[in-house]
């Protein structure tokens, strides 16, 4: 019995861990579905913000995507006609990922860019992710994106945004070349 003394402190710790794991399992079962739903709704809203006529969207084959693109595909209107393309990107900014949705027309020219999530420094890095900066990319094709200036004080963030949009448009061009 003396030999088993070392187990004494370990046992309560195990019990506590099991209880906490059970609580977490319960919370996870309640929230998991909603979390997935939230991200889908967020993406849908972003795409609909860029394409007001959007009725649905479909993902393309993921083997066509650039490394930083997590999802891309085409946007359909109510008649099932392709009205544009979208790409979901998350370039690394100054403080972690900047989630963006890039919408392009059927000739891979940017229509608009929507911000999903970012934790850039308020007042500094956020200058790169605000509307005025994102709107600068409207109407640009792949070759013209490099012409957008970086923002003073937000160099890293705005470079990340530009690079992300570039790989998004590149992915759309690849999808276009594949004939869809």
């Amino acid at each position, binding site marked *: 019995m003396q030999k088993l003394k070392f187990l*004494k*402190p*370990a046992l*309560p*710790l195990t*019990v*506590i*861990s099991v209880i*906490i*794991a059970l*609580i*977490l399992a319960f*919370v*996870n079962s*309640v*929230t*998991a579905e*909603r*979390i997935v739903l*939230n991200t889908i709704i*967020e993406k849908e809203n972003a795409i609909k913000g860029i394409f007001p006529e959007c009725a649905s969207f479909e993902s393309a084959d993921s083997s066509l995507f650039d490394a930083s693109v997590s999802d891309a595909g085409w946007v359909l209107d109510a008649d099932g006609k392709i009205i544009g393309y979208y790409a979901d990107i998350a370039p690394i900014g100054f*403080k*972690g990922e900047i989630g963006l949705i890039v919408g392009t027309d059927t000739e891979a020219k940017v229509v608009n860019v929507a911000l999903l*999530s970012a*934790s850039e*420094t*308020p*007042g*500094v890095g956020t200058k790169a992710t605000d509307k005025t900066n994102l709107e600068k990319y409207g109407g640009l094709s792949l070759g013209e994106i490099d012409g957008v200036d970086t923002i003073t*004080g937000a160099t890293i963030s705005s470079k990340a945004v530009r690079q992300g949009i570039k790989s998004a448009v590149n992915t759309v061009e690849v999808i276009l070349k594949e004939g869809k």
Partner: protein
Amino acid sequence: MSKETKKIITDGLFDKNPILVQLLGTCATLAVTTSVSNGVAMGLSTTAVLVCSNLFISLLRNFIPKEVRIASYIVVISGFVTAVELLIKAFLPEINKSLGVFIPLIVVNCIILSRAESFASKNKPALAVLDGLSMGAGFTLALVVVSAIREVLGSGTLMGYKVTPESFEPSLMFVMSAGAFFTLALVIAGMNKILSVIKKRAEKKEVE
């Protein structure tokens, strides 16, 4: 109200305010106080974790062996933080957007560990919950004060609404970490002044 419960409440809010007097959780304070809404959300999430962990640890205070108590506390705290994180992601996606990266940091917020060690493990569950509420309220209050100053001076807004006149040029420094230290120092100085005035008054009364 008994003297004991009254002391717990004033301790958390003023006399032993976790940020302004004990200087605990400074890391979280400096990082999230760029806007009032972030400050409030961080304060409330921390309070939720603090109340849950205090209750849990107080209930198990005679069951947790001394040798592994810190490990037990951390398991409990990180469990509740993860639960809060999932709940925010599911039900408050807007807050998750601005505060998402900071929520996991609550695990290492020393306020929670220090309350577990110095209060919850020695007191009854009801008192531990009250202590969690009062410490959490003190933490939230301090965050709101610091973040209000930083948001007005740094971005010219309050809760996201513009409050300064057009002629006022927001000072970037208050958004950056330097401004965070600066503001926190000023608020602590103000708190010290208030506490010392209160103390002097109490002493005067005693003499009379």
